[in-house]
């Protein structure tokens, strides 16, 4: 990795690592009696390792000048492997919390392993650790290929990836220490949030600058989606996390919003995190790897356009459907609900555009598990967006809200759509990146596919069942106006579904382990003969070394 940097780049990387040590040192001293201090120490430690690596290899040979006319894929390689490690870790924790609902005593009497702390470890690990790394890695790859330009910088991609992973580590370790901002999917505290803002701005600037030097007349659809993902996530993250820390030496902060305004801001964020992190970004992935793998043109350029603008415009209004039948004014709920209903059309147009792109390649879908992953992902995307719009209708929501149905819906999206499209993309990408003829084992991909699909189906079906049963039990009244069931009765009734869910989750986890192993073995395979093309325009902002 360092061998691909020029001396100038190595020294700017050293400055940045030094800056990390200084920032971490400040946190470590200011927060010495607090988790904040531990996190500061971790940043110091990470910065020191980077500095040490850079210093020890500073005088190594510089990369050949021609290599500057090639794509820069080291960061993508790093991101792919790290994403798979996060996947294995976070689905393991996810399955653990699933078993906690069956055997609540499986916390081994420790605070860090209680349900309330492990659950955000699972959600953050999967969404940001796995999803975030997968998006950053593939966006770098797709951006360069569809722009026919090298990344605008060789250090900034590392700032993005390493910084983002440090953020994720601060987040999950913080939860286990009991640190949380108490906002779902935005649990990290103020200092980690500020750190991420810097990282994200670097990501945005890098993306725009690379796009600006593209050699293609048009910007490809995938890049619209990636851009929307980066830009909107920045806005969401900054606004929802506005908070006042107790002191600069303390991890605890209080939200700038209160009451129903806080709830509305949180679910505006929460719903658009689904939209722009888990949908927009992964649609970017789909729009590149699916047609590449299928060898087919995108079915309709016009459908891409109306889907993109439909999704981008409509999602912004829909967040209030998370607060049906609450203190939120009735009109806000209704407005969010109507936009949620319209939203199903551009969502299905996206799924349809993907599936119709496969026309002429269905025999590949049958034979190639990699393409089948992407096909199933598009199906689950359609399924869960329909389900989401359906659940946003107030009377439907009165049954589904607060039940496991929501959990099932989220996992239809996260397992069926987000993870499956990523697996398809990774199995397409890994042989390209490491210049291998193929993946190490196609049978292991096949095994992964069936484990992931059966795990998802078992998970989603058990949660549909338990969710609807819960909802019906909670609203059942006897003739004399008393509730027919106690809450405890509904908990008892969930037991078989919780076992089934945990088994489904385990199958999905097992598939992830196989995927990581397969990717690792592929990296260890001998490389093919490779003739670099060196056809990219010179990178203007990097002076060649004298």
């Amino acid at each position, binding site marked *: 990795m360092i061998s691909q940097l020029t001396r100038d780049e190595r020294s700017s990387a050293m400055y940045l690592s030094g800056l990390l040590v200084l920032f971490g040192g400040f946190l470590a001293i200011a927060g010495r009696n607090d988790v904040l201090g531990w996190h500061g120490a971790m940043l110091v430690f990470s910065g020191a390792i980077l500095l040490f690596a850079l210093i020890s290899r500073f005088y190594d040979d510089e990369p050949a000048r021609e290599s500057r006319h090639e794509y820069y894929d080291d960061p993508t390689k790093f991101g792919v492997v790290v994403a798979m490690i996060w996947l294995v870790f976070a689905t393991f924790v996810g399955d653990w919390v699933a078993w906690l609902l069956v055997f609540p005593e499986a916390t081994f009497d420790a605070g860090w392993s209680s349900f309330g702390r492990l659950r955000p470890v699972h959600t953050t690990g999967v969404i940001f650790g796995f999803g975030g790394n997968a998006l950053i890695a593939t966006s770098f790859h797709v951006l360069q*290929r569809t722009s026919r330009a090298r990344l605008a910088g060789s250090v900034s991609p590392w700032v993005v990836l390493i910084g983002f992973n440090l953020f994720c580590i601060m987040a999950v370790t913080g939860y286990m220490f009991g640190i949380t901002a108490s906002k779902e999917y935005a649990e990290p505290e103020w200092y980690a949030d500020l750190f991420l803002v810097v990282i994200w701005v670097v990501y945005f600037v890098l993306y725009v600058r690379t796009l600006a030097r593209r050699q293609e007349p048009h910007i490809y659809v995938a890049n619209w989606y990636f851009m929307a993902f980066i830009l909107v996530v920045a806005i969401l993250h900054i606004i929802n996390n506005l908070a006042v820390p107790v002191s600069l030496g303390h991890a605890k902060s209080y939200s700038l919003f209160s009451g129903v305004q806080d709830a509305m801001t949180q679910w505006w964020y929460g719903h658009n995190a689904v939209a722009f992190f888990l949908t927009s970004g992964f649609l970017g992935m789909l729009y590149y790897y699916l047609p590449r793998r299928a060898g*087919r043109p995108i*079915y*309709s350029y*016009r*459908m891409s356009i109306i889907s993109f603008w439909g999704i981008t415009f409509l999602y912004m209004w829909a967040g209030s459907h998370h607060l049906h039948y609450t203190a939120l004014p009735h009109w806000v709920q*209704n407005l969010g609900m109507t936009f949620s*209903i319209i939203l199903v059309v551009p969502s299905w147009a996206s799924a349809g555009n993907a599936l119709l792109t496969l026309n002429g390649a269905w025999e590949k879908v049958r034979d190639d598990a990699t393409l089948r992953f992407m096909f199933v992902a598009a199906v689950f995307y359609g399924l869960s967006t329909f389900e989401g719009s359906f659940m946003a209708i107030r009377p439907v929501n009165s049954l589904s809200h607060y039940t496991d149905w929501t959990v099932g819906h989220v996992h239809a999206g996260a397992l069926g759509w987000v993870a499956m499209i990523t697996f398809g993309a990774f199995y397409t990408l890994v042989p390209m990146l490491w210049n291998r003829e193929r993946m190490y084992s196609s049978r292991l991909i096949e095994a992964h596919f069936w484990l992931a699909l059966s795990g998802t189906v078992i998970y989603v079906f058990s949660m549909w069942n338990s969710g609807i049963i819960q909802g019906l039990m909670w609203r059942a009244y006897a003739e004399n106006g008393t*509730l027919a069931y*106690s809450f405890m009765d509904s908990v008892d009734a969930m037991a078989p579904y919780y076992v089934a869910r945990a088994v489904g989750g385990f199958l999905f986890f097992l598939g992830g382990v196989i995927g990581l192993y397969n990717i690792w073995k592929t990296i260890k395979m001998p490389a093919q003969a490779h003739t670099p093309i060196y056809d990219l325009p010179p990178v203007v902002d990097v002076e060649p070394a004298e």
Partner: protein
Amino acid sequence: MTKPERDPYTGLMTTGHEWNGIKELKTPIPRPVKFFLALTILVSVLFWVLFPTWPYGSGYTKGILNIDQRQLVAEDLSRSAALRASWEEKFSTTDLAALEADADAMTFVRSHGARLFKDNCAACHGTDAAGGPGFPSLVDDQWLWGGESETILETLKVGINTRHEDTRNAEMLAFGDQGLLDADQIRALTSYVVSLSRADELSEKSVAQLPQGKELFAENCASCHGETGKGLRDVGAPNLTDDYWIYGGDVDTIRATLRHGRKGVMPFWDQRLNEADLRLLTLYVRDIGAQTK
């Protein structure tokens, strides 16, 4: 930029764009997409006309149906109150003893009371009401404050060690932590307390401590637990001579209780449940106790 070309499989033209081998077809937007887009927008507009939706300055459009969720909730609540009226008045006014003698009333207690118990009491006392360490069993016929229905009802209403103005108060002092007794004295007192229920279990060494323990008991404990250690219901002090223990009757637990004290809390319910539900729960608790006996 490549030229538009005909896709051999679909026979459609491409747009002429190409990125890293990816092309796009110039397929027009399919009819169903246009149709459903129009339909969902139409449904939404209709909804906006009928229901409250759009904000303007200081207010929002009320919709021509003039429906609001507050009013819907109020209607639901009054419908529910009407259904409950069939039994609520009877349970909130009739004498508890009379209700206990009424077979129909008790059938209702056993169904609705069970649900109330599981929703409000089971988290501490257990679904079988048998309690656990720190939480008294309600089915062993042992009562700290008395098992009469009026006493149980009062405990439900005001709780124990709560911020309710009429709360029952009961505290076992932390004799060790507060420096009232030293370690030797606590050991002697522990032996004496064990001897009240299970004298045969004591070692010779412990038996030797009993005279000192007895003296300490008379000085420190008898005011609440009584001269003979049989407890005092007026102050909620448990009987120490029987086999029923809230926190545990083994030597270690008794010593820990003497050292660190105890101050268990029973929440108060009179601001959360209404009179009928409270009385129903009282009857239910007495009933399960009686059935287990």
